[in-house]
C-alpha cells in the first residue's frame, strides 16, 4: 500500500473538496425536500414491506450477477479468440441501454410470447412465467452482468504476464493458481462490484414494476413515487430517501470492510497464455461460459436490433437533433465526471479507511433520482428559473451518477499504481504533478478509459432528470424515444432505440479503446 507518511498534496485536497461537494449535491436536495415537508413524517407498514422487498431483490440480483460473472470473466481473461475484443464491448450493451429498451428486448426472448417460450412450447414443455421476483432478478442480472464481468475482468488483467509465466515454469496446478492468484483477485474486486450492483438495484423502478407482476413487488422507489405523486407527502418521500442513504452507507461499510487489497502489478490487455494448469475440461468450461453469456446478453439485443432497424432511416428530424444534443451532453457529463473522479480516487488511495469517501460518492446512485431531481428543482427555483437550465442540470446529475462507476474502475488501479510505482517515485524525489504524470496516470489509462466510457454511455442512455424539467425543443434521445412510445409511434420508438444503442456503444467503445491504446501499440 501507499506510504502513509506522505503528506497530502494539492490534488488530494482538491479531491477532498470535490468529495464533500458530491455528498452535498445529494444531501442538499434531500434536505431541500425535507424542509418543504410537514413534520414529523412517518412510514407505514406498506413502506416497510417495500424496504424489505427492495433489499431482498437487490441482494439477490447482486449475488446472482457477480456469481455468474466470475466464470465468464475468468474465461475471457484466459482465452484468446478472434473477435474477443468486440465481444467484450458488445456484451456491455445491456448495461448501457435505457431500461425500457432492455426490458422489451429481454421479453422478446424470455417473455410469454418470447423465443425461449416458443422453443419450450415447440418441445412440448410448459411455458415459463417470467413475471415475479424471478423476472426482476433475471432483468437485473441481464442489465448488470456485463458490468460485473468487466469489473472482475479488470482484476484478472491486472495480473502481470511475467508472474503467470513464472507460475507456469514452477508447474502450478489449477488449485495453486486459485490460491495464489484467483482468490486474492476476487477478494479485491468482488465486494466492490457486488456493492455497485446492489445499489443500482435498490433504486430500480421500471424494471421491478414491469417484471414484478404486481403490487406485491413494490420497491422503495415506487413508494417514493406514490408519496410524491399520489399522496403528495414530501416528508415520507424524504424519509424514504434517508432510508436509501442508510442502506447505501450500511452496504458500503459491509462491502468495503470485506475488500482485501492485493499487490500485483499492471498488465496488458492480453490474455495470459498459456494459463498454468490448463486442461481440456477447463477449456471446454470456459467456452461454455462465454457462449452462454453471449447468448443470454446478445439475443435480447438482437431482438431490439431486428425490430428497430427497418425504422432507422425514416426517423423524424427531431430524433436526430435530440441524438446530437445527447452526444454533446454525454461528452460534457463525462468531462465533469472524470474531473471529479480523478482527484477523489487519488485521495482515496491515501486514506486509512478508503471505503468511507468512496461510499459517500456511491450515494449518487443509491438515492432516488426523483428525490434528488425534485430537491434540485426546489433549490434552483429559490434562486432562478430552472427551466432554461434543464440541460446543464441533467448533465451535472448524469456526471454525479456516473461517478461511482468511474471510482470503482479507478480506485483499485490507483492503489496498485501507488503500491508499485509510489516507492520508486518517492526514491526519485518525484512529487506533485510530475509524480502524477509519470508514475500514476500512465497506470490509470485503461481504467480511466473504461470508466469514462461507462460515464459517457450512461449519460447518453439514461433518461435522467430531464423528464422533470422538460420543455419543448430540449429533448434528449431517450426522452424523444419515450415520447414516441407515448404517442403510439412504436416503430419509430424502436428505430430510436437502435440509434440510441448504436451511439451509446460507439461512445463507450471510443473511450474504452482510447484507454487501451498504449497497451495495443506497445
Amino acid at each position, binding site marked *: 500500500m501507499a506510504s502513509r507518511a506522505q503528506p497530502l498534496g494539492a490534488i488530494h485536497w482538491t479531491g477532498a473538496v470535490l468529495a464533500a461537494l458530491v455528498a452535498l449535491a445529494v444531501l442538499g436536495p434531500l434536505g431541500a425536500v425535507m424542509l418543504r415537508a410537514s413534520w414529523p413524517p412517518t412510514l407505514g407498514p406498506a413502506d416497510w414491506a417495500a424496504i424489505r422487498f427492495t433489499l431482498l431483490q437487490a441482494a439477490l440480483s447482486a449475488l446472482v450477477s457477480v456469481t455468474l460473472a466470475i466464470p465468464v470473466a475468468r474465461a475471457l481473461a484466459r482465452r484468446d479468440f478472434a473477435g474477443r475484443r468486440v465481444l467484450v464491448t458488445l456484451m456491455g450493451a445491456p448495461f448501457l441501454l435505457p431500461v425500457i429498451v432492455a426490458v422489451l428486448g429481454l421479453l422478446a426472448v424470455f417473455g410469454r410470447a418470447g423465443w425461449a417460450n416458443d422453443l419450450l412450447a415447440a418441445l412440448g414443455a410448459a411455458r415459463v412465467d417470467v*413475471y415475479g421476483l424471478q423476472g426482476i432478478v433475471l432483468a437485473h442480472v441481464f442489465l448488470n452482468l456485463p458490468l460485473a464481468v468487466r469489473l472482475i475482468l479488470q482484476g484478472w488483467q491486472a495480473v502481470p504476464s511475467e508472474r503467470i509465466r513464472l507460475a507456469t515454469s514452477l508447474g502450478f496446478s489449477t488449485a495453486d493458481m486459485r490460491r495464489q492468484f484467483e482468490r486474492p483477485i476476487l477478494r479485491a474486486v468482488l465486494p466492490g462490484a457486488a456493492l455497485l450492483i446492489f445499489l443500482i438495484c435498490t433504486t430500480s423502478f421500471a424494471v421491478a414494476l414491469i417484471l414484478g407482476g404486481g403490487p406485491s413487488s413494490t420497491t422503495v422507489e415506487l413508494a417514493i*413515487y406514490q408519496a410524491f405523486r399520489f399522496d403528495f407527502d414530501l416528508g415520507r418521500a424524504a424519509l424514504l430517501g434517508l432510508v436509501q442513504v442508510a442502506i447505501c452507507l450500511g452496504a458500503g461499510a459491509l462491502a468495503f470492510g470485506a475488500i482485501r487489497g492485493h499487490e500485483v502489478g499492471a498488465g496488458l490487455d492480453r490474455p495470459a497464455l498459456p494459463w498454468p494448469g490448463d486442461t481440456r475440461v477447463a477449456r471446454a468450461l470456459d467456452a461454455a461460459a462465454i457462449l452462454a453469456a453471449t447468448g443470454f446478453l446478445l439475443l435480447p439485443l438482437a431482438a431490439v436490433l431486428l425490430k428497430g432497424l427497418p425504422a432507422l432511416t425514416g426517423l423524424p428530424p427531431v430524433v436526430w437533433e435530440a441524438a446530437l444534443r445527447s452526444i454533446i451532453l454525454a461528452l460534457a457529463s463525462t468531462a465533469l465526471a472524470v474531473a471529479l473522479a480523478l482527484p477523489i480516487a487519488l485521495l482515496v488511495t491515501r486514506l486509512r479507511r478508503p471505503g468511507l469517501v468512496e461510499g459517500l460518492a456511491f450515494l449518487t446512485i443509491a438515492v432516488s433520482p426523483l428525490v434528488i431531481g425534485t430537491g434540485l428543482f426546489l433549490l434552483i427555483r429559490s434562486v432562478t428559473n430552472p427551466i432554461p437550465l434543464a440541460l446543464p442540470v441533467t448533465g451535472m446529475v448524469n456526471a454525479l451518477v456516473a461517478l461511482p462507476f468511474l471510482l470503482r474502475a479507478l480506485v483499485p488501479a490507483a492503489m496498485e499504481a501507488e503500491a508499485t510505482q509510489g516507492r520508486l517515485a518517492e526514491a526519485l524525489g518525484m512529487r506533485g504533478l510530475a509524480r502524477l504524470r509519470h508514475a500514476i496516470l500512465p497506470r490509470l489509462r485503461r481504467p480511466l478509459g473504461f470508466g469514462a466510457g461507462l460515464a459517457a454511455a450512461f449519460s447518453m442512455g439514461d433518461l435522467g432528470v430531464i423528464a*422533470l424539467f422538460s420543455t419543448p425543443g430540449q429533448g434528449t434521445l431517450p426522452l424523444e424515444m419515450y415520447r414516441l412510445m407515448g404517442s403510439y409511434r412504436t416503430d419509430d420508438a424502436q428505430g430510436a432505440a437502435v440509434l440510441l444503442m448504436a451511439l451509446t456503444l460507439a461512445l463507450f467503445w471510443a473511450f474504452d479503446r482510447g484507454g487501451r491504446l498504449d497497451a495495443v501499440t506497445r
Partner: protein
Amino acid sequence: MKHTIIAAGLSVVAGAAFAQTPVLTVYTYDSFVSDWGPGPAVEEAFEATCGCDLQFVGAGDGAALLARLRLEGESTEADIVLGLDTNLTAAARETGLFAPHGITPDGLTLPIAWDDAEFLPFDWGYFAFVHDTALANVPGDFEALAASDISIVIQDPRSSTPGLGLLMWVEAAYGDGAGEIWEGLADNIVTVTPGWSEAYGLFLEGEADMVLSYTTSPAYHLIAEEDPSKTAAAFAEGHYMQVEVAGMLAGTDQPELAQAFLSFMLTPEFQEVIPTTNWMYPAALPASALPEGFETLVQPSQALLLSPEDAAARRDEALATWQAALSR
C-alpha cells in the same frame, strides 16, 4: 445543440428586452408538448391571434403536473395548467391556487353535463381494454373477464393516470364489490406497468391479449397505420371516462390572456387538433366533425364518472383494496 443553448440564452435575454410581448405560460403533460402531440399546432394557432408568446412547459403526466404545481405553490410561473383529469381536480382545487374561469361553455360534446367553476374540459375518452380483432371469446364485462383466461396488462394507479382511471372504473361499477372483482382479475393480470407507454408496448409485443387503454386507441392504428386489426371490448357495466381539463391560476399576471386561451381551447381551431394528436375525443366538437375512422369506434352503452369529490374521497380505500387483492 449549440444553437439550442444559444437560443435558450437569447430567449431569456429577449424575454427581458421585449417585455411588451406578453408571455402566457402553460404547464401541461409531456406528451402534449411533444412534436407528435397537439402542442405545436395549438401554439401556432393561438399565437396567430393573441399577439402574445405562448410558452408550454412539460412535466411528466397529469399527476406529475399537479405535484409540480404544489411544489411551486403561489410563486408558480404558470398562468394556465392544462392536462389534469377529474380524478385530480379535487386535490387541485384544494390548493386554492386556481381562479374561476368565468366562462359559460357552449357546445360541449361530452356525454355528461359539465358544471365546474374552475376547470374546463378540452378532451375526453373512455377507458377500455384494447385487443386484437382476432381474439376469441372477448369478455363483455369485468366478471366475464375475471372468469376467462384472457391475459391483460394494466398500469399502476400509484404512478399512472390510466391506472388510477381503472381503479375508479371498478370502484364506480362495483362499489363494495370491487375487491372481489380485483381478486378475480388477479390471475388475468400479466403485470402492472409504471405508465401507459410500457403497458401498450408490452401488448403490441404480444405479452398479453388485452391492455388497458382507451376506446379511441384503435383509431390511431386505423388512421395513422391503416391497420384495422385493433379494437376495444365494450363492457356492459359502462365505461369510466377520463375528462382532461385546464384551469387558470389565481396568481396569474395575465388574467385576460389566460381567459382568452381557455375560450380559444373550446373553439374548433384547438378542438380539431385533438383527435389525431392526442387520440382522444375533443370536448367541444360535434361527432360529424371528427376525422374519418372515428365512427368505427366502440360506443359504450353507459358513461361512468365519479364526481371529483367522490373520486378523491374514495381513492385511498380503493387503492388499499386493489393492493390487498393483488398482493395475495
